[in-house]
C-alpha cells in the first residue's frame, strides 16, 4: 500500500519537529521512512499510524543519524570546488584574469581592486549570504543544507585573503601574485556556485 500526500506530510512534519531543518536532507529521509512504513503496513497488515510508530521506535537512532552534519561534511564541498578548477571554463577565466592583470595593472580600476580586494570579497560574501537568506528563508520559507554549505568556501576564501594579504602589502611582486591568485580563486568560486545553483534548481534535492 502506497502512502498518500497527507501521510507523507505527516512524516515531514515529524522530522521538522525533531529539528531536521533542511528540506534537502529531509527529502531523502522521508523517502527512506515512507518506504519502510509501507513495507511494514504490507507485511504486518497494520494501518499507517501503527506502522509509523513501530518503524520509528525501532529505527529512531539510525534515522536521525542521517541528519548528522559535522565539519567533515564541508570537506567534500571544498574538494568539489578545487576539482572545478580543471573545468575548461575555470581554466579560461584564470587565463583571462592573469592576462588582463598584467595588461591593465597600472590602470585605475586595477589599483582600486588591488587595494581593496578584501572589501570586494566581503561585499560579495555578504550579498550572496543575504540574497540567499532573503530568497530561501524569507520568500520560500525553506532552508537547504546545500545552499547554506556553499557559503563555507567563500568564507574560507575571505578569511584566507585577510590573513595572507596583510604581511605582504608592501612587497609588490608577492602582493601581485596574491592578487591574481585570489581573483582566480574567487572567479572560479563564482562559476562553481552558478553551476551548483543550476544543479540545485534542476533537482531541488541535493544533499552532498
Amino acid at each position: 500500500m502506497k502512502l498518500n500526500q497527507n501521510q507523507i506530510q505527516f512524516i515531514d512534519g515529524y522530522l521538522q519537529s525533531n529539528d531536521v531543518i533542511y528540506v534537502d536532507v529531509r527529502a531523502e529521509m522521508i523517502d527512506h521512512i515512507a518506504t519502510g512504513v509501507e513495507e511494514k503496513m504490507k507485511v504486518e497488515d497494520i494501518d499507517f499510524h501503527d506502522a509509523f510508530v513501530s518503524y520509528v521506535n525501532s529505527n529512531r537512532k539510525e534515522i536521525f543519524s542521517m541528519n548528522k552534519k559535522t565539519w567533515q561534511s564541508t570537506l567534500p564541498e571544498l574538494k568539489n570546488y578545487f576539482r572545478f578548477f580543471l573545468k575548461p571554463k575555470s581554466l579560461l577565466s584564470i587565463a583571462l584574469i592573469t592576462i588582463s592583470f598584467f595588461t591593465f595593472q597600472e590602470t585605475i580600476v586595477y589599483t582600486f581592486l588591488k587595494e581593496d580586494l578584501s572589501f570586494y570579497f566581503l561585499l560579495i560574501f555578504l550579498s550572496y549570504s543575504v540574497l540567499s537568506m532573503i530568497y530561501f528563508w524569507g520568500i520560500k520559507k525553506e532552508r537547504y543544507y546545500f545552499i547554506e554549505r556553499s557559503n563555507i568556501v567563500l568564507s574560507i576564501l575571505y578569511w584566507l585573503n585577510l590573513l595572507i594579504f596583510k604581511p605582504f602589502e608592501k612587497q609588490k611582486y608577492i602582493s601581485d601574485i596574491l592578487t591574481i591568485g585570489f581573483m582566480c580563486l574567487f572567479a572560479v568560486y563564482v562559476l562553481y556556485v552558478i553551476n551548483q545553483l543550476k544543479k540545485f534548481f534542476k533537482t531541488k534535492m541535493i544533499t552532498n
Partner: protein
Amino acid sequence: MKNSQLYKGSLTTIVMKLLEENGRMYGYEITQKVKEITKGELKITEGALYPALHKLEAEGVLEVEIENVDNRLRKYYKLTEKGTAETVNRLAELEEFIKNMQSIVNPKLA
C-alpha cells in the same frame, strides 16, 4: 551493521558492486538488497549508508537521478563512467584482501 569493524572498510565496494549489477538504486533498496543477499546476516545502517553514498557522489563515482515517486521525491544513485572503472579496481582489491585473509585464517584452504 553486524560485526561492523570487519565490514566497515568494504561498505563502499559493496554499494558499488550492487549498483554495477542493478543499474540504479535508492538508499532503502540498497539496505534491503544487502539484507536479502546475506540472509539478514549483514545489516547496513542508514547512518553508515547515506554518508557513504554522499561521499561517493561528491567524488564523482556516483551520480543521482531524482524522481517523484508515490507522492515523494526519490533519489536514485548510479555509477558514473569513472565509478564503473573504479568498481573493477575495488572489487579486485577486495578479492585480494579475502584471499590474503584466507591464507592467514585457514592456510589449508588458501
